[in-house]
């Protein structure tokens, strides 16, 4: 490669690098600004709001006042606990119910298996927004309005979850199944002792996706829950932001509290989540 061509290559690489860098920076600016501002006292936020200075991004008098207010003005800790409770129960139950079904679809033979699976997949087109009204009425009939059951039970069975796990299960070699069968293992035993332990990545992936979806759930909890003691965190933040509309510091503090756990969990289990998304792209 001659000199000018090599020079050109380095040039394009540098341009690419710089461009990506600024784009990435632009992408994370909202979060950084919100995070930093959550530690600024109310007056300071507006003092340096405009025009843009470096002080806009640095808390000159860092304070935890905003966070304190978030917990005292509304039952925010309660919101977080409720959401943790609902998300955890839904995720764990969902993993069990969906993996059992996925195992049956991946490994067991029964009449109509593929047809039922196909029909199940086709329900993916039924989205929560479309059925929110009848679901609400059904939940109302069951007497579950304003209870956590309404949040948990409808969220357990998931066609997507079954699809995802079945993909993972299909990759597990059948010889292990056969060996276990010869040793007298029951169908449930194979599921419990062979398939489940070997599909930890798949379970973690689905668990993460489900947990995140439940943590950030908004529309359904908005409709179904009325009392503040049962409220979930996203609905809590929305009402908090309307109530304290000019108190940016507080709002940012609430937002940070809501996002921090997710971002941390995500950072740790990143590769599972991303792999899960990528896998579902290969239908």
């Amino acid at each position, binding site marked *: 490669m001659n000199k000018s061509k090599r020079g050109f290559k380095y040039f394009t690489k540098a341009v*690419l*690098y710089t461009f*990506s860098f600024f*784009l*990435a920076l632009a992408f*994370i*600016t909202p*979060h950084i600004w*919100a995070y930093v501002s959550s530690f600024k006292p109310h007056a300071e936020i507006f003092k340096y*709001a*405009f*025009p*843009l200075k470096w002080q*806009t991004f640095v808390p000159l008098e860092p304070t935890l006042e905003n966070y304190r207010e978030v917990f005292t003005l509304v039952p925010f800790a309660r919101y977080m606990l409720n959401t943790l409770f609902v998300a955890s129960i839904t995720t764990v139950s969902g993993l069990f*119910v969906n993996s*059992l*079904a996925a*195992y*049956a679809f991946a490994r*067991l033979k029964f*009449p109509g298996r593929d047809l*039922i699976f196909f029909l*199940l997949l086709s*329900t993916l*087109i*039924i*989205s929560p*927004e*479309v059925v*929110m*009204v*009848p679901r609400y*009425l*059904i939940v109302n009939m069951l007497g579950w309005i304003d209870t956590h059951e309404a949040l948990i039970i*409808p969220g*357990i*069975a*998931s*066609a997507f979850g*079954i699809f995802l796990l079945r993909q993972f299960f299909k990759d597990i070699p059948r010889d292990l199944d*056969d060996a276990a069968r010869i040793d007298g293992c*029951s169908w449930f035993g194979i599921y419990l002792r062979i398939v489940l332990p070997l599909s930890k990545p798949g379970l973690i992936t689905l668990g993460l996706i489900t947990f995140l979806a439940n943590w*950030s759930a*908004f*529309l359904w909890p*908005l409709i179904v829950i009325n009392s503040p003691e049962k409220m979930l965190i*996203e*609905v809590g*933040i*929305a009402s908090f*932001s309307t109530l304290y509309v000019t108190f940016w510091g507080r709002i*940012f503090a609430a*937002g940070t509290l*809501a*996002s921090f756990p*997710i971002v941390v969990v995500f950072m740790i289990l990143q590769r599972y*989540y991303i792999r899960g*998304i*990528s896998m579902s792209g*290969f239908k």
Partner: protein
Amino acid sequence: MRKESQESLLVKIKGSRRRSELSQPIAGYLFIMPAVLGILIFSVIPVIYAFYISFTDYNLLNPIKNLVGYQNYKDLLNDPLFWKSMKNSFYFAGVVVPLQSALALGLAILVNQKIKMRGFFRSAFFVPVVTSMVVASTIWLIMYNPSSGLINSILMRLGLPRQPFLTSSVQAMPAVIVMCIWKSVGFSMVIFLAGLQGIPQELYEAVQIDGAGKWQSFRYITLPLLKRTTLFILVITTMDALKIFSPMYVMTGGGPRHATMGIVFYIWKIAFSYMKMGYASALAFVLFALILILTLLQFRFLGTRVEY
């Protein structure tokens, strides 16, 4: 078959069926039952129920329910707010789907290059996906503040005039669109990335030997081989775009003057502010039919077999 003969051998040896052993079909049905039941009760039956209610004038404030035939559907056709919300949803989807997908592809290609810190870049573009829609909308709501928001602050620094953003019926929707693209592009990017990494390097090397340039290899190798991934992304993004709700609730409440009221927001308003369940079900059913048709169309036009 090998398995059957092993089993029959076992039966012969042990002389009888194992105790408390479920037959394969029964185990199969039993294992799928909880999940199938859940999906039936909370997905399939609601659709049928919604269909039924859409033919009544069911109102939660009024216990009496009458069958009113096609009245709800007739009302909807004559409802200017329905058409406005449909227009808004199409406006939103029409901009977001192509723009976000193209941007996602670009970012995926960018992140796929062998540059240092590409893990950082990938995470930077993906973090908005992980934070919730409500928190994202709240942050951007403040960023868009017409007097002291961050964006206007940056504009002023650059010598440009302040913009009304969410308070202007013209700028509100684009403002919401920008936020949504920022939030979701990382998701599509990751899927494209997986698709890109599935293309064998040898193909690129082969055409490079034949003298093909970067643009040509993109057009004749990358694009065709990403067809399936692209279809998946287009379908998912379209469905998500038509179902958008939280940003509108948090950022604008559907305004100003219904400029950002999407169809789901309208359904929610009718059902849970006005309690008109019958009408809301009719609206929801129209949305359902719309999504169904669009998805089928996308599969028809973009779901072709790809040859190497």
